[in-house]
């Protein structure tokens, strides 16, 4: 799983980078929202962890929006000071998967990342199954639809033959002759 961390505090950034990569995830850090947005544009990430309050035009909420517009599959975890939990709840309403309070408890973060990773694996599995089902379904559909048309045409020809052969205005010989002509012409 690839993770992008956006935080303007260089010490926190370093800490995130070390702890998350020690845990076995690929991690990239950005010093502010603008840099994170540029990275999001260039590289596909699975998860974005962002501080809600960052200097510049792109704060945590804006970055969340950019990430979600890029792909709804990108999960965003926001980091917030204890005093601004309301903003974090607002971020979740806007599509963040979770929030963590400062100072970040890394065990807690890793649990969330594990959960996200599990869900993503399940989603991929469901996607693969769906793909397999679609292939089976469309190939079955072609076979069934061909048979359906062939069958319907044959039924109509049979009906026509019955009609010709049971036409009491004509003698048997001309009925048979007409039926043969119909069969030859089809």
């Amino acid at each position, binding site marked *: 799983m690839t993770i992008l961390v956006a935080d303007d505090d260089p010490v926190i950034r370093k800490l995130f980078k070390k702890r998350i990569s020690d845990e076995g995830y690929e991690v990239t850090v950005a010093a502010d929202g603008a840099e994170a947005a540029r990275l999001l544009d260039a590289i596909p990430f699975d998860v974005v962890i962002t501080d809600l309050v960052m200097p510049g035009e792109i704060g945590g909420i804006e970055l969340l929006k950019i990430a979600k517009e890029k792909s709804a599959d990108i999960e965003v975890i926001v980091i917030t000071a204890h005093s601004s939990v309301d903003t974090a709840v607002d971020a979740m309403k806007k599509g963040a998967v979770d929030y963590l309070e400062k100072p970040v408890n890394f065990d807690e973060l890793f649990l969330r990342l594990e959960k996200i990773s599990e869900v993503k694996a399940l989603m991929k599995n469901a996607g693969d199954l769906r793909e397999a089902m679609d292939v089976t379904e469309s190939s079955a559909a072609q076979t*069934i*639809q061909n048979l359906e048309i062939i069958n*319907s045409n044959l039924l*109509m020809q049979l009906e026509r033959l019955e009609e010709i052969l049971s036409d009491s205005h004509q003698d048997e010989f001309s009925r048979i002759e007409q039926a043969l002509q119909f069969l030859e012409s089809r």
Partner: protein
Amino acid sequence: MLTISSEEIKLITKYIYEISGIYLDESKKYLLETRLNSIAEEQGCLSYLDFLKKAKADATKAIERKIIDAISTNETLFFRDTGPFQLLQHKIFPELIDARASKISSLKTSLKVWSAASSTGQELYSVAIVLQELLGDLSKYTIKLLGTDISDAAIAQASSGKYNKFEIERGLAREKLTRYFTMSGQMWKVNDQIRSMANFRKLNLMLPFTGLGKFDIVLCRNVAIYFTLEDRKKLFNKIADVLEPDGYLIIGSTESLTGICPRFIPKRHLRSIFYQLK
């Protein structure tokens, strides 16, 4: 988890058939257990026999509704199988609009579409989106889109027009998502314009179709597969009764009407099939 005896399977599948027309054979033990266990436990039942008695005795039919919600398969998605929607967009809607266009320009062209097993609404909203994109200004038309399903829960969700990200992402192109849906919390909500084109209500396809009126298009996809052959025959015969003489029927891409309803003739357009009355 409660286990189900073979005697109970017989009784429960019979009961499910009676309330919904869904035919489950005795090999569906696992499906019954996984889908019914939580309702049975919630009702404090110690066995499935006990559960069945309770469901039958419940005059409010609340348990019956829960069983139907649990047992009906709500597998659907936006633009499930692109074939039928291309068929609607490039062939059926243009043909119908030509045929229905009034000679008096002040009269609105009317179109009635029925999604017979609409599940959670994705199919009917997909039809609404196709119509919106094809016709642009809808004020010149009277469009009635009806969605029916046997599950109350499915109808409730269809009416709310709200979908979670898993439901929404499957089948729906990003560009359509942002144009026709608005994010509200963790859910995506279909826009009022599209929402207002569709109506949803509960209907058991086994019962008579009284008061439905006639339709220009009926979509009855991937639902008859849960019915017995006899019930399929009855169903498509009733559909033939509510279809306009030049109307269109679309069934699931792997379904067939061979040996089921001789009143319909299959017709092919590109890679899809639709049916019309003889």
